[in-house]
């Protein structure tokens, strides 16, 4: 975990509102960890949390959707511009303690942290990716490179299967499900996993200021009291969470 000014290698649009940013970085990163990103101007104040999408030799890759001020500003950066990176942060997925077959399930921009995860898991995971439609899908082929099985589901069937991704998983087959995506999707997965007695880990999003555990702004209510999404998470075991959130 360090603060660096990093040079941008590439910042390309990969789909509607979706960008892929590659920055110079050397270091070890666990899948599911994230960085706090900040442009060097003062067009916004707080660094923005963005997951590690991929890690290659001397570069870290992010996949992000332009939402508001910060991500829109980041999307205007170009090759050789500099950006402030702070990280890697968070616990990441606990990939050393997986039992049985693993399903990796992503929805929308929630797939961002999952590529690097799948890459590290090797051929041992089945990947399920859910999108609204083909136009709003991205980096699917990257996943196919690393995973044995990649099931794509779109709501309108314009790509892959038609329906909701949560309905295409045979939960019983898996020892563990690792997921990141919209809350509604993750809630459904948590419920299905509970019913089927499958371990489930979810990566959560919270507004963050420090990203390192000091401001106590990113509270996640757990059965063991308040935890910090940035430091104790962003990955939580679904068992731990106080539901109804």
């Amino acid at each position: 975990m360090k603060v660096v000014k990093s040079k941008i290698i590439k910042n390309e649009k990969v789909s509607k509102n979706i960008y892929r940013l590659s920055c110079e970085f050397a270091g070890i990163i666990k899948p599911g960890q994230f960085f706090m990103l900040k442009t060097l101007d003062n067009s916004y104040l707080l660094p923005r949390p963005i997951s590690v999408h991929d890690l290659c030799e001397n570069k870290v890759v992010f996949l992000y959707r332009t939402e508001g001020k910060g991500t829109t500003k980041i999307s205007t950066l170009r090759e050789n511009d500099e950006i402030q990176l702070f990280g890697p942060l968070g616990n990441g997925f606990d990939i050393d303690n997986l039992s049985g077959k693993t399903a990796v399930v992503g929805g929308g921009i929630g797939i961002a942290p999952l590529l690097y995860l799948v890459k590290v898991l090797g051929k041992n995971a089945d990947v399920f990716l859910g999108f609204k439609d083909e136009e709003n899908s991205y980096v699917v082929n990257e996943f196919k490179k690393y995973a044995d099985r990649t099931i794509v589901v779109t709501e309108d069937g314009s790509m892959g299967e038609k329906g909701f991704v949560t309905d295409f998983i045979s939960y019983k087959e898996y020892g563990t499900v690792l997921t990141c995506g919209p809350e509604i999707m993750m809630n459904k997965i948590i419920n299905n996993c509970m019913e089927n007695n499958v371990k489930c880990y979810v990566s959560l999003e919270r507004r963050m200021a420090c990203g390192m555990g000091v401001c106590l702004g990113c509270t996640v209510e757990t059965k063991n009291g308040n935890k910090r999404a940035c430091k104790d998470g962003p990955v939580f075991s679904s068992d731990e969470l106080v539901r109804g959130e």
Partner: protein
Amino acid sequence: MANLKINAMGLEFKNPVLTASGTYGFGEEFSEIYDVSILGGICSKGLTLNGRSGNTGIRLWETPMGLMNSIGLQNPGVDSFIHQELPRMKSYNTIIAANLGGHCDEDYYEGIYKLNETDVDLIELNISCPNVKSGGMAFGIKSAVAYDIVSKLRKICKKPLMVKLSPNAENISEMSIACEAAGADGISLINTVQALAIDIKKRKAVFDNIYAGLSGPCVKPIALRMVRDAAKSVKIPVCGLGGIMSAEDVVEFIMAGATLVQIGTGNFIKPDIAVDIINGLSEYMDREGIKSLDEIRGII
């Protein structure tokens, strides 16, 4: 090289740059990024006698060059601080201040009694918490209420006592004078400015508590004014904070009369900002031929 040492409140600070309560945890996380012993001091997260789990709902919201927070004093309580955090903090070789809040006189008494028996260097008294007895109005709004609690605590407190003022106080000069008269060894200001954010899509206040505290660069001009008001009103040292993001900002606070300063929100924007600021301050002094900050303190 410039001499950054500051003697204040009976303590020797390596330099005038402390880190602000609630923005630095108990220092542990930052010690993984840089050597925190370079700091003038560390103010602990705000403590209450008993631990608190803090507020529900959204706790952070960005505004134009500002941050609103409604953490609600989530903290492990004074006992846990003393046993779990303080020993490590003391090993950092810098001044350690315990920031203490309370909702009634008794909370403060017991907190102080416990801290008296530790090797904490300084107590920073946060009087911005709503005072249960005064109907929820903070101790820090009316000077007379502040005078009352500070003078009672001064009697029992064995440590140097720095009172942290709220910018929501009715009158900063009067408040500063009241704290000095009550025996405070120093004052720090500003705490966050009471503010409101509304989520027009949800048609609700962003925060469950409705109001929250504003900090960051947007409040710096207000903080500077209040620091000058305070410094002109009292003889005890003033610790200035509010929106500090650079060594130049620190110089402004010192020119406005501050003896010490604190970095708050800045720690989030660039987590090693304190390193830049301390180095920058020393370079500034060398560049300007300033031997001691006394030369520029309070010149405005």
